[in-house]
């Protein structure tokens, strides 16, 4: 509950600052299905693509001028959701 309030406040701040693009929370990895395409054949398997202890729990898409700004927001996000944040640029 505490983290929910913190994350809500962060979204508010992101919106006000005009950097918020998109946010998505993800249910546990056990809900995942992996779909593969091999020579025109589609196959499906239950479970996440890679079994690992760490799973992605959600993501933000933000629009900022440079890496340092992104890292600063990532710091706020890590504090709000109380989890580590991986920062990746979007291509282009």
């Amino acid at each position, binding site marked *: 509950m505490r983290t929910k309030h913190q994350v809500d406040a962060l979204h508010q701040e992101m919106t006000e600052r005009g950097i918020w693009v998109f946010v998505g929370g993800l249910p546990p990895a056990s809900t995942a299905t992996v779909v593969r395409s091999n020579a025109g054949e589609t196959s499906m398997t239950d479970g996440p693509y890679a079994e690992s202890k760490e799973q992605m729990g959600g993501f933000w898409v933000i629009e900022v*001028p*440079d*890496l*340092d700004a*992104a*890292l600063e927001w990532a710091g706020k996000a890590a504090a709000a959701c109380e989890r580590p944040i991986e*920062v990746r*640029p979007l*291509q282009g």
Partner: protein
Amino acid sequence: MSEDLAAIFRREAGRCTATLIRVLGDIDLAEDAVAEAFTIAAERWPETGVPPNPGAWITTIARNRAIDRLRRESTRTERHLAAHRLHETPDMEADHRPELRDLDAFVDVVLDDQLRLMFLCCHPALALDAQVALTLRLLGGLDTPELARAFLVPEATMAQRIVRAKRKLRNNHAPYRIPRAAELPDRLHAVLTAIYLVFTEGHRATSGDELLRVDLSVAAIRLGRVLVELMPDEPEAVGLLALMLLSDARRPARVAPDGALVRLADQDRSRWDRRLIAEGHKLVRACLRRNQPGPFQIQAAIAAVHAAAPSGETTDWSQIVALYDLLHAQRPNPVVAMNRAIAVGELRGAPDGVAELEAIDAEPLADYQPYHAARADLLARAGRAADAVAAYDRALELTTNPAERRFLADRRATVAGE
């Protein structure tokens, strides 16, 4: 002439590259342009003589050549845009011919650019080894083969480290700027740490590429001087330079003629470089007057106390213990605690030193060679020969450096009564 050019390259390439990165917005383009300008210099300078301000000359030629090339290759949209940007820079038109340009005004801008480049190379998004490689390559004027030899890695590994680092900075749109006041202390500490790592790497005596190693220390001190020049009000930058100068002063006495390592206590202090010590002491005094102690200043002060002692026995160990206390209060870590314990061993005797050492949580130090070497020495002096031999064995397992191996093996044999 060719030797002059090599020296000029080491000294000037960093600041030229720094400015070209700002102008061109791309590290690789900037490096290519600077290399091309130095090729032109190698052809022209033997006839015309070295210009009064070679750095500004190189920068101007490099920029003009880069503009020309971008125009020629402007079919590629990206580069066309870059060329377009160049035209919009207000101070561009007047200086198409370097002779017409007020070169001094240009150099002012360059100073700031070097600082930008230091912060870019030591960006916290890069791993420390990548920060160090990039700093030395872009600011230190060392090429990839030299870096590979200096850090004892294959050339391909070093090349890939540099390519990856540049790609990460480019893909992430790392900004080319001096960090804001709020982030400056952390970002500056990263720069200082990278420079100090270069220095310690160069300071470590090894058998193989001894000369290149010395080059690393020289490069680190040069970068340290540039940083002090650019940020004269940052006492930690001054502290780092003082620390490096005071440590470097001991270099002539650190290795015996047969290549063996000589401990601080056993060094012939008449061989210490008095000129470097005097400069280091002056900087430490300047730091003390500011009274904003930070980790590099405190380490410099410790080095200054050593440098001021005429012999190992007359060292003011109580002051050194006090300085380690201060350092540990600022940056608590097991290595500082270890060095403090060694100082306590000198001040109050080896048994007290052993007690202090054993009070430290040794787990993070399990694979740290200097811990086992220091522990072995203290145990030996405290009369615990069997424990000392075991500690020497562990230290030897962790030592790759031949000079250090020989030193430890000799000590072990003495303690074991062999």
